[in-house]
């Protein structure tokens, strides 16, 4: 699910630090955003925008961090509004509801662990590509720094 790959160039120490911070940002947002999933997105989008003119390595990892947050946003938002409906609305606590909450807790934990691992590895200048999110990032994030000699 998570691959260590060779990047197109060897990132510098400062670059690696910034790329690692993009994951730490989503991690902080994950903790703060558990009850309010939208916070995750705001924090990561903020960091993504701040680094959109950064180097390819930084932009690539900011994009991967942002995309990984998006899927959690959908899952957590649905769980959040379902909970609101159970507490205040017409919904009742059912097995489907409890199973859904447990499922999103599992996915959040998996994301949490993967994010910590990626932050540590990226901080050391290694290039970590997630299953699906890495592919999506490759489609979205292009290397503007690459010079064409032809």
């Amino acid at each position, binding site marked *: 699910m998570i691959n260590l790959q060779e990047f197109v160039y060897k990132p510098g120490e400062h670059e690696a630090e910034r790329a690692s911070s993009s994951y730490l940002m989503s991690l902080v947002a994950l903790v703060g955003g558990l009850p309010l999933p939208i916070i995750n997105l705001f924090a990561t989008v903020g960091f993504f925008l701040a680094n959109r003119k950064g180097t390819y390595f930084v932009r690539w990892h900011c994009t991967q961090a942002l995309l990984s947050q998006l*899927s959690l946003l959908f*899952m957590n938002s649905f769980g959040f509004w379902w909970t609101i409906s159970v*507490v*205040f*609305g*017409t919904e*009742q*606590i*059912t*097995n*489907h509801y*409890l*199973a*859904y909450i*447990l*499922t999103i807790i*599992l*996915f959040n934990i998996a994301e949490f662990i993967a994010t910590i691992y990626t932050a540590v590895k990226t901080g050391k200048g290694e290039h970590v590509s997630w*299953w*699906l999110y890495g*592919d*999506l990032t490759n*489609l979205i994030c292009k290397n503007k720094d690459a010079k064409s000699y032809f």
Partner: protein
Amino acid sequence: MQKVIFRTLVIIAFFFSTWFIINQFDWITIFNVKELTSDTEEKLGEIFWEMIERNNDEIDDEDIITIIDTLVSKICTSNNIDQSRIKIHVLDSYEVNAYALPDNHLIIFKELILSCDNESELCGVICHELAHLQKDHVVKKLVKEVGLSVLISTTIGNTSPDIISSSVKTLSSTAYDRNLEQVADLTAVDYMISSDIDPLPFANFLSRTWGDESEIIENLSWVSTHPEANARSEYIISYCEDYSWESVEILAPSTWLKLKSQLKDY
């Protein structure tokens, strides 16, 4: 691009399969959800009822209670509701009101019974309150109006009498959400039809009481705190159009008249 689409579909399938597998376990039993909820409701119901009992006179006339019990029994039996859990209290008050408390306490005010023209109207109100109880609306309303933390501290005895009193006032004098009211109204209609009670008098009771502003309006709590009684009456009538029912009187006409006369003299 095809690889991305394929992997997206795999992730979505993985999420739903995980949910499906987790859903195979009975989490309601594993987490003791029902017991925890009923323990909390029991404590809240006890505390709130004690407060109401201190400030109101409960009618304990056996004849009156038996007649109300007969109506509730018919509704509960026809709708698979455990009647032994329903605690009915008739209060001697000139307020046209009825409400539900946690732990299945159903409070009916004397004046509300007197303002009903027939047993179907009274059954409509009882069914509406039973629906609130069966659908867990009472605790939801308390959580929304009073707050979860206050409710929890109430159950462990850390709340002042003022807060308990204001919680009771919330339950007795303010309306539920429009959605919850509609669910309770339509569920009440279902209960009435299953019990062979004509639901239309319930709709008439709402619009009649709402329209009659010559009555002392502040005493019409049950109707005035349930907004847009005319609109409610209309959607009840329109909901009934899809159903047919047989209307069977639960009480003999003389018993209904006896109930009203005994309440008048009480």
